[in-house]
């Protein structure tokens, strides 16, 4: 019963091919000689070389990294604290708020994008703040990243063996010392997982960035979208392939951390 029959295996392999087809296509066509159209005319790496001379692409890459790094930093800090707090301490309305935190998991991007656009617009009218640009994008990204970090950290906190912290307390450590020297190192892999998750989400975002961006704050996804709208060309495929590579590296890292952390957890308990 628990072995894979031939039918199941075939179907599964076909499914894998299905989900990888788009990615493979993009990478393959980034080497296409022809500038327009879907016909294959030859192999070349010139589009990748052209990317490094393309000012708009470089600028967008820079913006994307700044956005991802800053938002991840803020989101991880706030999210970790939130995760710790939710797992340990009670406060009125905690149940309601936990429920609220799930919103970014299921909410369609467009709703988040549009509500933020509206919100920034209203604040701008009354207070003159929140001009659209890098700062509004960072704020937007932090907002959808925090819940993810918090959920991951909270899960790790719950999984911790409380006797370790109790031991630390017995030895005379106060709350802060216990947290910083005992708890935090234990949940660190979880925190890092959350951070990598947040970073990846930032890189992947398009809709929210698209609606809350301003001049000089164009990110790679926004650049790719505008270019695709004008017609897919191999240099866009080259750019996309590089982004795909980055995502793959990050995903593998997250998986490695996740597994290391599981081993750590099981060793201690």
């Amino acid at each position: 019963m628990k072995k894979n029959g031939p039918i199941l295996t075939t179907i599964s392999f076909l499914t894998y091919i299905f989900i990888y087809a788009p990615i493979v296509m993009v990478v393959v066509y980034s080497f296409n000689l022809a500038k327009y159209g879907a016909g294959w005319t030859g192999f070349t790496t010139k589009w990748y070389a052209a990317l490094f001379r393309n000012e708009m692409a470089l600028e967008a890459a820079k913006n994307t990294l700044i956005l991802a790094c800053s938002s991840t930093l803020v989101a991880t800090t706030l999210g970790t604290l939130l995760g710790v707090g939710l797992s340990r301490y009670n406060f009125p309305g905690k149940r309601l708020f936990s429920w609220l935190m799930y919103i970014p998991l299921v909410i369609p991007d467009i709703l988040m994008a549009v509500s933020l656009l509206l919100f920034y617009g209203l604040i701008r009218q009354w207070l003159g703040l929140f001009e659209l640009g890098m700062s509004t994008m960072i704020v937007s990204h932090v907002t959808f990243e925090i819940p993810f970090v918090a959920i991951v950290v909270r899960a790790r906190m719950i999984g911790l063996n409380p006797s370790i912290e109790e031991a630390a307390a017995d030895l005379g450590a106060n709350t802060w010392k216990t947290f910083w020297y005992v708890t935090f190192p234990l949940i660190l892999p979880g925190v890092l997982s959350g951070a990598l998750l947040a970073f990846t989400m930032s890189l992947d975002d398009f809709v929210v960035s698209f609606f809350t961006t301003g001049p000089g704050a164009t990110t790679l996804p926004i650049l790719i979208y505008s270019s695709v709208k004008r017609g897919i060309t191999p240099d866009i495929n080259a750019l996309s392939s590089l982004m795909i590579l980055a995502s793959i590296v990050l995903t593998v890292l997250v998986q490695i951390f996740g597994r290391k952390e599981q081993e750590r957890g099981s060793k201690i308990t």
Partner: protein
Amino acid sequence: MKKLSLFFLSLLICAVASAETNKLNLFIWSEYIDPEIISNFEKKFDCKVITDLYEDSESMLAKIEGGGVSLYDIAVPPDYIVSVMIKKKLLAALNMSNIPNAINVDDKFVNPSYDPGNAYSMPYQWGTVGIYARKKAGQTIDESWGILFDPKMNAGSFVMIDSMRESIDSALKYKGYSINTTEPAKLKEARDLLLDAKKRTLGFESGVGGKNKVLGKGATFAVAYSGDAVRGMSEDPETYYFVPREGSEIWVDNMVIPAKAPHKEMAEKFINYILDPEVGAKLSDFNQYATPNKASLLLIDQDDRKNPAIYPSKEVMAKLEFVQDLGSHTRIFDQVWTEVKTK
């Protein structure tokens, strides 16, 4: 500790210094300005130009209204949008003493009805809307909007343009109506024509997107702007551009400065720079649109001057209409367009 504070101090100085560097936030149509013109401008005025692109006028207006009024220094709207922006107080009045090259503007474009006295705008390029097509061996096509709207014509696959006025106007022209009509009955007819065409079209694309689709052989016809089409023609001689016999739109794009632009003086320098005879000629040679600059007209590639796709003949000009801002009646156009896009 000393090293650290020195480090931060130098960072601060760098930050301040970079803030001092002049900047210009340009908001313009894609493939519309020669990158060399931008780099020449940057060198001449020691300025960094940041370019953001758009694909249709309504999205540009939406972005300006949604906060862009204090972010961008230059935008390039078409004539009728300029009137809208003036009415909505989205534009800053031009300080003409900073734009001496204004005298180069051809008389036809001076003191236009959409901006009396050129108080807020200076013309950039002008052109037409038409159909960009791929030649089919041994076939003569009836050069009509029927390619889109007449199901019996079946001339080939076509792409419609993702721009409100352009699309609705083509339907109105096909029916022989003015593109500036406000009669709901006529607009309803246009809507129905468009919805019917939508069933047979390959989709809605931006002007440049449609042009590229024809170039890439993904479609036979696309509604396109004259300059984009002419550039396509030079890349692929198997393609051509025409203004349908029922008539079409003629438009003038203009440089404007949003009301709260952060670098107004630099923006005026930019406008003045574009109006320079040689720069204007270089611009038109690049984007293959028609220049409103009488001095540049003498300097452009003379083959372009004789190209009827760029500078239409008198007969074609007689069938072209300028788009006008219709004030509160724009609401009906908006509704028609929303229905066309959403059904």
